[in-house]
């Protein structure tokens, strides 16, 4: 947001800040990096019973340029890690990352040569979800944690890249 440049250096109101945070937290559009079984639970999370749209995640935007949070669902192999990193780099700030499931968080039950032992080896993860696969309720909980994080930690003025 070019708020700082429009209103002059150092000038912001807390109401503008909270307005921006409120709107950002209630419209978190996920980019599903659905790799494996957790992707099916993520589809259920977007499905009719555990509806994610009522939390603001109206659409699953498959384009990184249009999304806010990347949900890495499933084990990440070494071959795939570069593609994931590339997609992460294409997402515009502010962005968050959810590591869904045991495999994305730490490699899970797959302690072997092909699996990266935790996606946080190359991505800055905000919320980790445990479970194999976690119930969609857990994913909703993680989404709510991201919303809380946005409301509490984000600040419009500090939201610059340098």
């Amino acid at each position, binding site marked *: 947001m070019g708020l700082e440049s429009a209103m002059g250096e150092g000038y912001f109101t807390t109401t503008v800040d909270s307005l921006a945070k409120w709107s950002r937290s209630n419209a978190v559009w996920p980019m599903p990096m659905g790799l494996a079984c957790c992707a099916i639970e993520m589809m259920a999370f977007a499905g009719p019973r555990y509806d994610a749209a009522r939390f603001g995640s109206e659409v699953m935007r498959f384009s990184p340029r249009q999304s806010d949070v990347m949900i890495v669902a499933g084990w990440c*192999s070494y071959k795939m890690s570069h593609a994931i990193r590339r997609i992460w780099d294409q997402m515009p700030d502010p962005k968050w990352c959810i590591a869904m499931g045991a495999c994305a968080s730490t490699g899970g039950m797959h302690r072997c040569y092909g699996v990266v032992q935790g996606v946080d080896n190359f991505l800055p993860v905000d919320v980790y979800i445990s479970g194999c696969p976690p119930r969609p309720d857990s994913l909703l909980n993680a989404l709510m944690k991201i919303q809380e994080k946005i409301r509490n930690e984000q600040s419009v003025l500090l939201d610059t890249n340098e």
Partner: protein
Amino acid sequence: MDLDKTQSEYNATFFKEHQKALYKSLEDKHTTVEIDKDDPLETQMILNMGPQHPATHGVLRIVMELNGEKIVRSKLDIGYLHRGVEKIAENKTYQEFMPYTDRMDYLAPYSNNVAFCLAVEKIAHIEVPERAQYIRMICSELARISSHLLWLGTMLMDAGAVSFFIWTFRERERLYDIFDEVAGHRFTVSHSRIGGVANDFTEDALNSINEFVGAFPKELKDWNKFLNRNRIFIDRNKDVGVVDHEKAIDLGLTGPTLRATGIAYDIRKFDPYMLYNQIDFEVPTRLEGDNLARYFCRMEEMAESIKIIKQCLGKIKKGPIRTDNAKKAYPSKDEVYYSMEGLIHDFMMTDTGVCPPDGAESYHSVEGPKGELGYYIQSDGTGHPWRVKVNSPSFSNLQGLEQILDGEMVADTVVIIGGVDPVMGESDK
């Protein structure tokens, strides 16, 4: 297409050798389609349908050379979900390996469990009681319905009809409730144990299965009414991705993809396992070999599964759910808690596990929803297998996909992938 020109435009920053080899092999691919050498409008291009794309079949990468809208030739790149399950198997006991089988074809985990259990029971000569076999059959067929529901939802969502995804997921949630009741987990259950199943059906579980079996055929009928004569659906799927039966056998296709070309190869009839030879059901086949035929095969398979479940529910009788032999199967929890021998046997089974004879080998295949899923086990006498090879149907079907895609329109790619229905967790073991 000049490879140097392509390479300079494409700045590969990782796995350079890999990208170079992939594009080179695309250039070298033999095909009988004529390529127009003089191309003033530059209609030829190489399109990379990368490992991450919205057609949610997992991480499949297709590199295709296009001439306008037609795919001249294409190459698949898989392995983005490889974890070395076969290597892991060599370090785990047979029962410890069970959850890994769940995560292979993660749309119908129960069939994978059953396949592995059957292979181990064959190599170790374990007899499974009848009630356990019926439970396994009922749950395998429910898993087959679940997998086909997801196939239907995603294929139609990719073709544009998004509401179908929601409807099929509503039905899948009912199935998840049943599995939750039966096994404790929504879908990656590890319910089937070596020597039987983990726990018996409760009254609630049986009631919910009966309810599902009663309510589901009506849904199927509604969907059939909606789609079978739908002009848009038929136009999108008729004569798309045609395979004739000789090519299908030569390419090694399996499952509904093969049955849609006319070959009635279903392991449940070819080489019956469990109690399928006592159940009366049909194997749907079609002759056209196009996407519409695959659709019809799968829809009819869902109806047949309901028939099988009804018959099994009629025939199931009270009895033990796991074999009694202490060296071959875990004792029941009652025994473990209340008797010393039960405790010791439980410990030995967890520590060492089933020990098949040294040098023994076995192969057992089941008819999974995607096709013939087989496990080949070589034993060295210890509780860890020496070699486990998984013959995954999606791997064979994807091999065929490379040949099916040549000559098709690029907009049909998504529908064809949906029709072949690969699961990357399985093909990328």
